[in-house]
């Protein structure tokens, strides 16, 4: 199973994620993102389908995280579960499950402006995938 770890720098935060597969890595990175925003639990009562393309895996990861931020920031939607239907290094097709955002039930700890390309790292090793991405808060 993959996992994520929150990285801290003076002014900003990041996510280090691992996964045996690219799918797992993407799910862990998304969980890390939401954990920074809020500790709230939510159920996949509604779904949003997401399709992302990119030139390579690093940009794909950044676009994926920014897509989740977009769902949260623009649509009053609180993402909670991530189902990757298809993932290659250039394309993701996924379903994001979650609830309508309710500040009472989903207390927000902090807002994230965006996932950045700064010192972005994504690599496939013998034990699977590993990535690091920094966020602008």
């Amino acid at each position, binding site marked *: 199973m993959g996992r994520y770890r929150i990285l*801290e*720098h*003076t*002014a*900003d*935060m990041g996510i280090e994620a691992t996964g045996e597969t690219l799918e797992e890595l993407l799910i862990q990175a998304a969980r890390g993102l939401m954990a920074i925003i809020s500790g709230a639990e939510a159920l996949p009562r509604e779904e949003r389908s997401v399709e992302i393309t990119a*030139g390579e895996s*690093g*940009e794909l990861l950044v*676009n994926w995280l*920014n897509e989740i931020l*977009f769902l*949260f*920031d*623009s649509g*009053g939607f609180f993402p909670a579960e991530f189902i990757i239907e298809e993932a290659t290094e250039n394309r993701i097709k996924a379903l994001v499950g979650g609830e309508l*955002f309710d*500040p009472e039930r989903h*207390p*927000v*700890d*902090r*807002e994230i*402006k*965006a996932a*950045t*390309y*700064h*010192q*972005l790292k994504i690599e496939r090793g013998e034990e699977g995938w590993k990535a690091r991405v*920094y966020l*602008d*808060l």
Partner: protein
Amino acid sequence: MSITVEKIDTCRWRIPRSGKMRAEGLVFASEALMKVLQREEQQALEQVRNVATLPGLVGPSIAMPDIHWGYGFPIGGVAAFDLDEGVVSPGGVGYDINCGVRLLRCALAAAEVRPRLKELADALFRNVPSGVGSHRRDLKLSVQAERQVLKKGARWAVEQGFGAEEDLRHIEEGGAIPGAEPEFVSDRALERGRTQLGTLGSGNHFLEVQQVEEIHDEEAARALGLFQGQLTVTIHTGSRGLGHQVCDDYLRVMLQASRKYGIELPDRQLCCAPLRSPEATQYMGAMACAANFAFANRQLITSWVRESFEQVLGLGPSDLRLSVIYDVCHNIAKWETHTFQGKERRLCVHRKGATRAFPPGHPETPEAYRHVGQPVLIPGDMGRYSYVLVGTSGAFEETFGSTCHGAGRILSRHAAKRQARGRNIEAELAAQGILIRAAGRATVAEEISEAYKDVMEVVGVVQQAGIGKIVARLRPMAVIKG
């Protein structure tokens, strides 16, 4: 990796050219601040160096005393690029396009308002939306109206009855950067913007009721309408989700453009395009839209600040006279004319975590301030103080008319929370006469004073270097945070 810095004088340091640098780095810092930078912000110094590798940079890659690690460009950086040879980089502006500060003065003394401060803080917290998902129910924005906001900036808000014509005279660029092209803004950015116009946001953004604690420069203070003990209000926010989306959209465009134009990047976040390319034109058009959105945002919030004061104090606008002293951007790229090495040049000046600081006599300094210089607003942390400065000819000559922008964090959020654990921060601030209202659960602990550099040190360096002149110090009384 250790970065070589050479001391020039008590507040200037040089990062000599090495590797692929096309120019040297110039860092403004005291001995003490440089020690901290070398110990903990090596990466920020490396970023100053990275910026110096970009094509068409004019003069050095400049860093202000509040510099810290950013994305690609350091926060607290200034970089000017030549129209023909240079580039524009969305990372050199940042995600929060036209994040900025607006200062209002009031006819009242702080002491007259102090007895009603609690009600005032509550009213401001209620009337000015802060935190995720919060917005005014009485402000509905159609797609057409949003396009007008992007074109007209603060003027749009004034036309809708939020504030007066005279407010516009005291905003950088009159509250609207020219060249805004809404067709270069994506639907996603427009969608994010629609529900977020007129909102404060969270993190280090704030709304503060303050008192003038100390006047440092009588003449400039008089010109700015500031007096000892006076009540002021500071608004610190930017272009919200619209700006973040514009930045993200154009980083993708610029990643492609950098490959297309063969620009070598030490860090992908520095991706950019030649200023004369279509990609640059599109970004500049979209960036101006986001900047104008931010000006309109601060204009709307100003109107709700006035409304809150009127509600709580039962006074009319002519008694309160809550007028705009100035409104400055500290995340922006702008076309400006500067004299460099004796020649007049048209430059694209990137200020990321840096403030324009035009000197006395400059035509873009509002008439009321032309004899003292453009007001510069430097927020500090919520427990100490903020500063008002004016621009100087020193800044115009040495830093393309730029100075610092704030305090800058010294503790990570985690470290701040650890320091705040077991303490009642609200009560500690209340004991100092500062009320706080915050929407985010973690905000108060993460934003404690100790998490920030002492802004007094930062403005001290700026003044000593002659790239800014201190006018007054403001002390917080009530702080509204997202």
